[in-house]
């Protein structure tokens, strides 16, 4: 009996679906944690006391300078050596979220720093407190500058989840490779994986485009 792609796909569908969900789950966790940590990290980089700024700077520069795969291997095998036994899934989220937060912190810092000093001065002059200046004056202007690079980072994170196949996390790529190992339908199954990733990332960039339009009225 001849093998058809549809037949093989149906056979592998449960594993593929599981991989798809895992990819989405890890990506969402990493992006949400990275973004939240990035807002805090960015604030510390701009307004933190000097020692805190210095530590944040080291964190951001070190993490951005290390390949994601190395971070993943370190967090999976390295943390186990020092007695932290975490699952491959957790190790992957830790590594990717660490990387993501470093990028988001830097994006956030850049966005705040690029707002003209006159904006803060005008906000001070009408009597706004630090928190009010940030919420009503700086953040809305920073948002527009954050969206494009933040979406880029998010897309990179979705792609970065494929590296977790190396430590045995069953995400789309590993599920695809396992299917191919059984049926040798290399082109068909890799093409399917590509389609998954494309749909995910294209949706992300559409979300980005929406927010860019939403903040597009802010002009100088």
């Amino acid at each position, binding site marked *: 009996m001849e093998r058809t792609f549809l037949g093989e796909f149906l056979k592998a569908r449960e594993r593929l679906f599981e991989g798809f969900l895992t990819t989405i789950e890890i990506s969402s966790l990493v992006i949400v944690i990275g973004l939240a940590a990035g807002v805090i990290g960015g604030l510390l980089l701009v307004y933190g006391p000097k020692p805190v700024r210095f530590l944040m700077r080291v964190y951001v520069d070190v993490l951005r300078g290390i390949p994601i795969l190395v971070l993943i291997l370190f967090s999976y095998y390295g943390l186990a050596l020092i007695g932290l036994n975490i699952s491959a899934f957790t190790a992957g989220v830790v590594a990717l979220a660490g990387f993501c937060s470093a990028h988001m912190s830097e994006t956030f810092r850049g966005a705040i720093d690029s707002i003209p000093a006159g904006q803060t001065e005008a906000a001070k*002059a*009408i009597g706004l407190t630090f928190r009010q200046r940030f919420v009503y*004056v700086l953040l809305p202007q920073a948002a527009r500058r954050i969206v494009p690079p933040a979406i880029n980072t998010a897309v990179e994170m979705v792609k970065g989840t494929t590296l977790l196949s190396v430590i045995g996390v069953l995400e789309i790529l590993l599920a695809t490779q396992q299917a191919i190992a059984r049926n040798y339908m290399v082109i068909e199954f890799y093409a399917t994986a590509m389609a998954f990733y494309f749909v995910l990332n294209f949706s992300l960039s559409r979300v980005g485009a929406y927010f860019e339009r939403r903040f597009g009225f802010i*002009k*100088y």
Partner: protein
Amino acid sequence: MSASPSVSPRAEPARELLVARGVHKSFGDTKVLKGIDLTVTEGEVVALIGASGSGKTTFLRCINLLEEFEQGSITVDGDPVGYADRNGTRRRISETRLAAQRARIGMVFQSFNLFPHMTAAENVMLGLVKVKGMAKAEARSIAEHWLDRVGLAERRDHHPFQLSGGQQQRVAIARAVAMEPRLILFDEVTSALDPELVSEVLGVMKDLAKSGMTMIVVSHEMLFVRDVATHVVFLDSGRIVEEGEPHALFRNPSSDRLRGFLGRFTDIIGDITTR
């Protein structure tokens, strides 16, 4: 000693509103203010003039602590701005107290600094709602009133990028005045404007001066200074060299520095004392 607040200001015509004593300020090793003493009474329009680098803008920015200063004191309405004496040491006051002080001192900037993500009306409303705690509707009607006063009733729902420089600066003035400050600081507010837009901004400032608003103005518009200021202060290298009533000061400058400074304007606009 400052006047007791219970005394009616009408009974006391020359009520001191701002008192600066021995204000010193350095940027690194460069001393930009070397002991500024200045008293501004209520309703006065004080013009700070001088060459660039003389310290006039820096002093203006010290008044609402956009610039910190190392020595001396500035009090507005008897309240020392920015610093408090605690057991003999000079300490910065808390962020909240400083914000409250700043709310009573308006400022208009050379580069307008309107908030680009808000309409003209929203720019004026922000301080009213967030600092003064007004309801939005009330703030909106006050904003509309002031935008009308500066001739921008029809532009209130425009964003800054849709307005000319002169219009943006008038919104900025409305934003400062609407807070009902005790005094307003003007930092070279016409320097960034095209010549044909300068007069619309100066016109608004003249009206404001006539209404009795206390103003401290850094300006190179000597004709405006001569006609509107009640008191002119000439700064040179971080010191007050000469001060007085504008016509008298411009006619008979007693220092070579001021004579030289005014001479530069005479070349451009003719004799300031006679025109």
